[in-house]
């Protein structure tokens, strides 16, 4: 029995085992980290991808509404559209006439849905439809009833148009039964109030969903002469020119056929001598009519894929500090007052007390907590030496970093910043205790007290929180900073409203500095606090109910209804420590149109606030809103404008088809990215698609009669629904196997 072959065999086997083991070890040493990295990357990717699109309709920019409409396979060909906006600015209000022309370029009867954004505070009050030489005037109706009548008219082949509010700033206009090659003109009138900030008046007309400006539009001079005449011009030229370019997709690629030419003109009567009038994003032609009046017309080759913004200011010496306007409607007078607080220089800024509350619960995990930390870090760096501050963090537990507010010394700020940097997201959300702690004002009694609340608002007890704010707010002002792509805007904006502060939304880390700077510029410069208003006459109904603080450069805007405009309106407040009052003689108000609608719109907002406060029930609020809307002819979440032509036009055997007006995405939006996967929808494919859709529709007579619903609500993004559990277990088992084999090897060698 020789030992050598045995030994060599043993040696060989050992060599092989060592190599095998090391191979495993190396592959694992490399493979496992790589897998771990990939796996770690997968997560943020998923969570990045989803919030981007998983925004609920309420958080979405107008542009994204469009995206969700384009999946319906039923589009045939979109009706061609032209749009004209005619604005009349008279003192504090702007009344707009929005005229849209629909031209059915197909040989079918179609239904068109047009989505248009309006400013938040706008009031839509009139709809007229022009069919040939007939004009149909719409009536305000309760929303459900209007919808039912519209559906009925549509099925019966009547021409009908319905304006609905989808969200406070997004309206849809549905037009049914547009005959082959027929043109229909729909005219909507709405009103918005002019914004005043930092001595500059401004007016914004959202044109993003509405259409691009067409360079081949008629000459501006002709347009401004007369709306109808101008309208005729602008409608004619593009349709002649574009008749050979069929619109195949409801959503058009940039640079594609511009089907929505826009014309726009503004008659500006500021009511005071004007200094400078300019349009921020579009080329305009400005004619001087008088000292205080201008006529502005959209000019040149401007593409209106962004909102139209007009700004104007008064000659410095004539800058109005108060404004008082009146409108008499029915038996009542409606008043609108602008009060600009005097600019009192405060040599030494009074110290404030600022309490920061940061949510580090589990729902803030990922980028949200980073945004919150960055925001708070910025905020802390902005504190002045004579400010007092405290930091409270909470999940289902809470920590007050200082037992009570402390002076903002470099040392205190430094330690607070270190504390904030170390915060990690974990645990549940109990927002009430930190809210109560932040509002606890038992120690300091004077001066400004501001609470800055950073959270995503993912809580269940919203009402409880709002109640707490209403009860405990005292002199504290609450500023909500909403973190993440989809914070609970309802809770945040209501909380800020009740807390007489503001709501700032931070959607990405990149936005932190800009948004927080804007917020802190405001926070550091409150002009007037403790604002109150009273009338010498009785029975004045004032809106808003809860008067906000006035910040630097912003006016206080009050709307009121009273039997007869007489007596005085007294506004009082505190500038720093000094009391301030101003009396406005109401009989000197100048006449302006649309004040009653501003008042009604604000009353509706007040009703919503009272509903939140629990002062009135849902039924009461709905009743009040419905009454206001019907009285003042406003489109709200409960009312719609409806026009139905009584003449039956569509032959019963010609099937109705739907088509959305093509919509343009806002500038800077990536068309392909927004569309998701289908990057290229070439015309042929679309045509095939449409033909197929067409066939299916003609085969199934009832299918096309489904109601068009708001595109804002037609699709739901689904969450990620796979756990990494199996992956983790597999990784774990792999590592275990490798470890065991190595161990085995080591032991074998040991024995050898």
């Amino acid at each position: 029995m020789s030992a050598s072959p045995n030994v060599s065999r043993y040696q060989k086997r050992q060599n092989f085992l060592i190599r095998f083991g090391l191979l495993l070890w190396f592959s694992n040493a490399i493979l496992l980290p790589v897998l771990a990295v990939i796996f770690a990357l997968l997560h943020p990717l998923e969570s990045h991808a989803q919030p981007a699109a998983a925004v609920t309709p309420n958080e979405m920019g107008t542009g994204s509404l469009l995206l969700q409409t384009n999946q319906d396979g039923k589009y045939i060909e979109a009706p061609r559209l032209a749009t004209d906006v005619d604005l009349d600015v008279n003192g504090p209000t702007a009344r707009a006439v929005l005229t849209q022309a629909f031209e059915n370029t197909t040989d079918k009867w179609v239904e068109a849905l047009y989505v248009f954004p309006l400013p938040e505070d706008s009031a839509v009050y009139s709809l007229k439809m022009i069919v040939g030489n007939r004009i149909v005037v719409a009536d305000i109706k309760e929303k459900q009833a209007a919808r039912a009548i519209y559906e009925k008219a549509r099925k019966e082949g009547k021409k009908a148009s319905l304006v609905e509010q989808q969200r406070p700033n997004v309206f849809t206009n549905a037009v049914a039964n547009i005959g082959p090659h027929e043109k229909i003109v729909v005219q909507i009138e709405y009103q918005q109030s002019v914004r005043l900030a930092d001595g500059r008046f401004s007016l914004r007309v959202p044109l993003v969903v509405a259409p691009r400006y067409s360079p081949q539009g008629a000459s501006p001079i002709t347009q401004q002469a007369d709306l109808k005449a101008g309208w005729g011009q602008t409608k004619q030229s593009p349709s002649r020119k574009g008749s050979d370019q069929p619109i195949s997709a409801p959503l058009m690629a940039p640079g594609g056929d511009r089907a929505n030419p826009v014309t726009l003109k503004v008659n500006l009567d500021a009511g005071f001598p004007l200094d400078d009038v300019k349009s921020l994003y579009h080329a305009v032609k400005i004619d001087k009519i008088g000292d205080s009046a201008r006529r502005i017309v959209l000019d040149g080759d401007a593409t209106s894929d962004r909102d139209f913004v007009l700004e104007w200011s008064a000659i410095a010496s004539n800058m109005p500090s108060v404004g008082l306007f009146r409108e008499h409607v029915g038996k009542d007078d409606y008043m609108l007052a602008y009060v600009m607080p005097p600019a009192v220089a405060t040599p030494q800024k009074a110290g404030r007390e600022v309490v920061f509350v940061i949510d580090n619960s589990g729902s803030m995990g990922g980028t949200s907590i980073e945004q919150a930390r960055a925001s708070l870090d910025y905020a802390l760096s902005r504190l002045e030496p004579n400010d007092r501050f405290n930091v409270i963090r909470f999940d289902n537990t809470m920590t007050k970093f200082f037992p009570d507010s402390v002076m903002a010394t470099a040392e205190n700020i430094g330690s607070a910043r270190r504390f904030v940097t170390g915060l990690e997201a974990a645990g549940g959300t109990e927002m009430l205790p930190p809210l109560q702690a932040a509002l606890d004002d038992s120690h300091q009694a004077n001066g400004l007290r501001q609470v800055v609340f950073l959270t995503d608002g993912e809580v269940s007890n919203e009402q409880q929180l709002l109640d707490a704010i209403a009860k405990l707010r005292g002199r504290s002002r609450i500023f909500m900073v909403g973190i993440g792509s989809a914070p609970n805007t309802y809770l945040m904006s209501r909380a800020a409203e009740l807390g007489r502060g503001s709501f700032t939304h931070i959607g990405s880390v990149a936005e932190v500095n800009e948004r927080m700077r804007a917020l802190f510029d405001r926070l550091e410069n409150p002009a007037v606090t403790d604002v109150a208003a009273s009338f010498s006459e009785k029975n004045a109904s004032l809106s808003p109910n809860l008067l906000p603080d006035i910040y630097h450069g912003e006016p206080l805007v009050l709307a009121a209804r009273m039997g007869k405009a007489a007596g005085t309106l007294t506004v009082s407040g505190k500038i720093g420590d000094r009391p301030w009052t101003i009396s406005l003689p109401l009989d000197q108000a100048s006449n302006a149109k649309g004040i009653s609608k501003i008042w009604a719109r604000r009353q509706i907002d007040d009703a919503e606030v009272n509903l939140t406060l629990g002062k009135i029930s849902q039924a009461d609020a709905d009743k009040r809103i419905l009454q206001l809307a019907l009285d003042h002819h406003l489109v709200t979440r409960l009312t719609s404008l409806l026009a139905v032509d009584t003449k039956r036009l569509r032959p019963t055997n010609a099937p109705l088809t739907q088509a959305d007006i093509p919509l343009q995405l806002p500038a800077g939006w990536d068309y392909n990215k927004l569309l998701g996967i289908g990057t290229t929808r070439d015309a042929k494919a679309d045509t095939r698609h449409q033909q197929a859709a067409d066939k299916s529709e003609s085969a199934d007579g009832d299918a096309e009669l489904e109601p068009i619903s708001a595109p804002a609500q037609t699709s739901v993004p689904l969450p990620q629904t796979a756990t990494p559990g199996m992956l983790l277990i597999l990784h774990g088992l792999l590592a275990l196997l490798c470890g065991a084999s190595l161990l085995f090897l080591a032991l074998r060698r040991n024995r050898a």
Partner: protein
Amino acid sequence: MIVATRLQTIGSAPARSLLTFAAGILIAAGLFLAAQGGWIYAKAALAQLLLERAFAESVISGTPVKPWSWADTWPVARIEVPRLGVSAIALKGVSGQALAFGPGHLDNTPQAGEEGTAVYAAHRDTHFTFLRNIRENDRLRIARSDGQIFTFRVTHMAVARWDEAEIDPDARGVHLVLATCFPFDAVTSGPLRYLVYADLEETTGK
């Protein structure tokens, strides 16, 4: 392999201790990872027990009951498939936290049994594993926390990308969609979702 030969030449003692050390680390890491994976399943199963209790309580009290004090969400419905003998308690919302414990009801969709399309989503490898076994015409029973019970009949199944599912929450009629990730046996997460569509068949009161 160069290292391998070097290890041999250096001598066996340090190499051995290095190997043992590496093996120790690997085993520890393996145990940790496996435990983490296991914990996901354990959590999913355990949470359902607590949820079951909270749901029963909320049906009786008529108010939302949190399953544990620090929870961000609460049970809103029980989803049952009588043919398969499975059930799961669904939570409000579909945050990652909620889905770890049970199916989630999408906040921007109506409650099951209301006009429109209610959507529930859950993980394919925990609470909604049973979706793969669902067939057309199966009955789905949704018991809401207000005590009402709705029976839906499965009309069809489909696979779609998560952002192109074309689910209309305001559709006419009373509909239900159960959603989970697809394919079922995949280990990594992907963009596809498996959808089970159902229409209301019957309503049972309290």
